[in-house]
């Protein structure tokens, strides 16, 4: 048992967990890694390429080796770092990327063949024969690659998003972060203190150092208690700040439930916080780096600080016989602490010329070979080796805005560039200040400075602490034999690979990274990048800063996709908009269709109608025969008022509006400035200075935005006011020969043709309640649109249906609506495709050139007025039994199906029950001169090829007598 005394674990409680099916126990406060080590399990994973046996090298989120599949079933999480996985009762984890088992991994053959798998080898082979790549080489590579497995089941957990605001965000709750938070918190500022660990305190929890006369860990605990008592301070443990974005916005993930077997009912697994802050202090500490030597990747070989952390924080000795290989004084701390714990420790101090040159132990470290300064080599038996090549300030977030870090020779590491992110400063080890004293004082000083910017006065109160220097003498890799020395352990990038990259000219740090995959693993090179850079620098005889720097992009550590999506998934992906007749339609068993966010009635099946076509045919025929009712509420409605409203409409519509009389409606065509059709609809003049514009359902929002742009930006002195009324009114179309009779039963005023002629509009009452009536028609029938306040929409549809009973009126959906508009040759979505001009649509004459309306000028360009351009045509099959397909293209008889012969395409196709055959609208080159011509409509996807006749787009009542009836 390698549990030793001490540590911040609760030994009074025992937690059961399993790894690769074997049961173990641990304690609250353990991580999966500390608990496994406590159970003498050092082997935790396999490397990506060579499948080398691996164990934890760190005690933090920078871990590249100890990554496992956590949990089972739909909650299985691949690539989870054992070193930051908080232990819970019942935890189950599996090793990954090995077969058949972790101890006996067949893929380890790659390790034997490693000479053939040097950096970039795959760019140089697998090219012959060409067809073999997809068929043979790549499938093998894909199967072998990848790390953990996703369950392929839907993620069962919920994720939340949230928004937080503060004066000062402090990232990291080590000595610098805590002292900054205490300083700012006591001064009354709004503070957020976030730390990725479940226990705040940072390195203080892993050290035996004293702060203010008490143990660092106790000081941290007391500080956290005080901060928790301050109402203006928000503590966010288990929260990783993943990136710095523009203007003081930071993104953070709080792991609300990951330390539980599963989330509590109603609770999210994680919350993605968007933090708005005025100032930020990055106090994320530093990350220790290894020294590369042959076979430096065996389980049991760790960073010296991690070895110390396991002993001090978790009461775990990784071995009785231990060695420490260091080039700085921090490594000596590990020696002292472990010796104090009664372990037998050998020191190899590189500064004295001693080096570790090799190690042995197939599945875990058994011995190391040391070359002493005097050249003598010796092999000693150890089960743990702590390595310290120095510490890299954890400047990750500070480089998110691509500010280049600056090299500091005294610590042989990169420091965050000053001012690299507006409002952010770095304190403590993250700024290269490695002593506890420096961290505490810097935290205090930065908090005072940040608050001073905001006009808040804070006072310094810094506890005493050690202030020892690092005394580092750089050593990056040990020069010795032919073996491999790992730089990036997960991706199996070795010193040799860096040398090969150099040899082949991939010297730029970006080329090095991309060619060798250095730093591309799940740890994003937190431990390996600077080492790789240093090796390249040595090879090229340049300094490290000359060779390049490494900057980091978000996220700081990998983030669950679920957290980034939050609640917006499945049926909640986007909001749903319901029409006023929705409840009624549901009762009738209507079939609904998504139209943008709207759900509209597509058709209303009646008993004994097995196919949708029968329902739609009935709706169309009955409407044309008697009367039909349709919910048209989804059309955009924009209330336009002001003394210049008429002049305004004259500029946003291509056709003339100035002459529209009060009480009248007119069809309007709206162009984009590039001359293409933007939208169409009717606009009604309800009063002297009052208009109601309707837009297509799809363009309601863009058109409103465009109108605001026109009145605010283009013509700021026009007296025009706008507001949307789309949802304020429930609007129903009543169409068909009996439409008037039907409506008259409900409308209190006379709506005879004389009193309410075609294209009339006005306020009316429906059995006493307020309503608006428009005599407009999309179907080509005698038709009205009646609008009542939305709350009465449900009652209105029921009233209309009731009133229509004597006429056997139907309620029709979007399909029947579509049939009738194609029969009438009205353009809609498929024709209003943003690529079509008024001329293309056969509406060229509507574009007035006598006024400066938007789009008029550019619609006159030669390319848009060419006579051989597309024109809207009607299309019908020569053989009525054949049906057309929207999207099919036009070819003349005998022409091959090539682009040169492409005449155009069918935009919309419906079956016209009125005509008894399929009909369509299409865009055909020179279409308006080709009436009566016979062409082929070809759909190469379905291999259909039918003869069609080009006809007028107005299939039904071309003179429009019915709608005036």
């Amino acid at each position, binding site marked *: 048992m390698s549990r030793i005394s001490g540590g911040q674990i609760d030994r009074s409680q025992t937690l059961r967990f399993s790894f690769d099916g074997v049961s173990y126990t641990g304690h609250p406060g353990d991580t999966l890694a500390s608990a496994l080590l406590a159970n003498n399990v050092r082997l935790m994973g396999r490397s990506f390429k060579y499948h080398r046996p691996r164990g934890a090298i760190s005690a933090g989120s920078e871990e590249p080796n100890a990554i496992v599949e956590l949990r089972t079933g739909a909650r299985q999480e691949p690539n989870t770092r054992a070193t930051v996985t908080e232990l819970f009762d019942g935890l189950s984890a599996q090793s990954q990327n090995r077969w058949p088992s972790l101890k006996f991994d067949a893929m380890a053959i790659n390790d034997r063949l490693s000479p053939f798998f040097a950096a970039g080898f795959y760019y140089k082979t697998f090219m012959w024969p060409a067809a073999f790549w997809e068929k043979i080489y790549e499938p093998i590579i894909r199967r072998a690659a990848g790390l953990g497995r996703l369950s392929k089941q839907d993620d069962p957990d919920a994720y939340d998003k949230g928004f937080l605001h503060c004066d000062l965000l402090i990232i990291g709750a080590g000595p610098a972060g805590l002292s900054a938070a205490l300083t700012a918190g006591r001064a009354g500022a709004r503070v957020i203190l976030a730390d990725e660990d479940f226990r705040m305190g940072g390195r203080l929890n892993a050290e035996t150092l004293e702060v203010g006369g008490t143990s660092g860990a106790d000081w941290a605990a007391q500080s956290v208690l005080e901060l928790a008592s301050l109402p203006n301070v928000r503590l966010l443990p288990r929260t990783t700040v993943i990136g710095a*974005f*523009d*203007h*003081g*916005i930071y993104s953070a993930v709080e792991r609300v439930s990951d330390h539980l077997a599963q989330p509590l009912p109603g609770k999210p697994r994680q919350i993605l916080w*968007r933090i*708005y802050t005025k100032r930020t202090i990055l106090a994320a500490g530093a990350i220790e780096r290894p020294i590369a030597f042959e076979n430096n990747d065996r389980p049991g070989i760790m960073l010296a600080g991690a070895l110390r952390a396991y002993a001090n924080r978790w009461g775990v000795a990784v071995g009785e016989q231990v060695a420490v290989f260091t080039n700085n004084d921090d490594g000596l701390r590990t020696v002292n602490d472990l010796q104090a714990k009664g372990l037998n420790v050998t020191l190899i101090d590189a500064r004295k010329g001693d080096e570790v040159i090799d190690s042995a132990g197939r599945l875990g470290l058994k011995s190391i070979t040391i070359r002493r300064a005097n050249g003598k080599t010796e092999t000693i038996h150890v089960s743990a080796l702590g390595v310290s090549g120095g510490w890299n300030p954890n400047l990750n977030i500070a480089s998110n*805005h691509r500010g280049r870090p600056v090299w500091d020779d005294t610590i042989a590491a990169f420091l965050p560039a000053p001012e690299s992110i*507006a409002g952010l400063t770095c304190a403590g080890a993250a700024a290269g200040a490695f002593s506890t004293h420096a961290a505490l004082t810097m935290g205090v000083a930065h908090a005072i400075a940040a608050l001073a910017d905001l006009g808040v006065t804070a006072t310094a109160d810094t506890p005493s602490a050690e202030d020892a220097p690092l005394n580092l003498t750089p050593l990056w890799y040990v020069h010795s034999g032919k073996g491999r020395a790992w730089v990036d352990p997960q991706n199996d990038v070795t010193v040799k690979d860096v040398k090969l990259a150099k040899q082949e000219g991939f010297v730029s740090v970006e080329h090095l990274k991309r060619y060798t995959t250095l730093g591309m693993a799940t740890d994003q090179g937190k431990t390996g990048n600077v080492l790789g850079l240093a090796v390249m620098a040595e090879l090229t005889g340049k300094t490290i800063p000359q060779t390049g720097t490494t900057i980091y992009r978000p996220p700081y550590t990998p983030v669950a996709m679920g957290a980034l999506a939050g609640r917006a998934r499945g049926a909640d992906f986007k909001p749903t908009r319901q029409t006023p007749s929705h409840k009624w339609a549901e009762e009738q068993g209507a079939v609904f269709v998504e139209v943008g966010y709207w759900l509209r009635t597509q058709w209303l099946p009646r008993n004994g109608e097995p196919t949708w076509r029968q329902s739609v045919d009935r709706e169309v025929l009955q409407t044309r025969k008697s009367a039909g009712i349709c919910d048209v509420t989804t059309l955009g409605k924009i209330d336009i008022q002001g003394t*210049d409203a008429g*002049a305004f409409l004259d500029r946003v519509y291509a056709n003339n509006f100035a002459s529209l009389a009060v009480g009248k409606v007119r069809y309007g065509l709206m162009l984009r*400035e*590039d001359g293409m059709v933007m939208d169409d609809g009717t606009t009604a003049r309800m009063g002297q200075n009052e208009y109601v514009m309707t837009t297509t359902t799809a363009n309601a*929002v863009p058109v409103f*935005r465009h109108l*605001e*742009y026109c009145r*605010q*930006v*283009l*013509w*700021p*002195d*026009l007296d025009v006011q706008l507001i949307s009324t789309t949802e304020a009114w429930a609007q129903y179309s009543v169409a068909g020969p009996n439409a008037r009779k039907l409506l008259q039963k409900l409308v209190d005023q006379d709506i005879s043709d004389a009193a309410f002629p075609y294209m009339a509009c006005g306020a009316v009452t429906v059995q006493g309640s307020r309503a608006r009536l428009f005599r407009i028609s999309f179907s080509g029938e005698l038709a009205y649109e009646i609008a009542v306040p939305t709350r009465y929409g449900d009652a209105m549809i029921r009233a209309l249906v009731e009133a229509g009973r004597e006429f056997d009126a139907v309620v029709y959906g979007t399909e029947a609506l579509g049939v009738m508009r194609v029969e009438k040759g009205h353009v809609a979505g498929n024709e209003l495709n943003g690529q079509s001009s008024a001329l293309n649509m056969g509406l060229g004459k509507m574009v007035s050139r006598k*006024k*400066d*309306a938007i789009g*008029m*000028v*550019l619609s*006159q*360009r030669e390319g848009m007025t060419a006579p051989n351009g597309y024109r809207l045509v009607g299309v019908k099959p020569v053989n009525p039994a054949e049906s057309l397909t929207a999207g099919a293209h036009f070819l003349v008889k005998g022409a091959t199906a090539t682009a040169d012969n492409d005449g155009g395409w069918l935009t919309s196709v419906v079956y016209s029950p009125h005509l008894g055959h399929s009909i369509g609208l299409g865009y055909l080159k020179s279409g308006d001169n080709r009436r009566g011509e016979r062409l082929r409509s070809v759909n190469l996807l379905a291999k259909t090829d039918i003869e069609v006749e080009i006809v007028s787009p107005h299939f039904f009542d071309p003179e429009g007598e019915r709608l005036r009836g």
Partner: protein
Amino acid sequence: MIINHPLLGPRDSQEFIYLGDAALIHRPDGMAEGALERFVDYTYLRDNPAGSHRELWYHEQGDRSWLVVTRDTTTHEITAVEMARDVARAEGRSK
């Protein structure tokens, strides 16, 4: 990003819709001589500077004001936010 709305103070740019270069304020006169050439230039050509850029944003999920935002396209730093209507008037737009 945060846009400091002249009337409403700092707002998340997610509430806004971006249009483009504020030069769009200067729509040519469609009835004037040589209108076509001017409209082609106005509609299609952009300075697209790497640096300070005056651009139009619309507070769609807010007060529906169009704003002229001066923003550095290399750092995203915003140095000025004005009501587009005021800017348009100041630059000679009227009816």
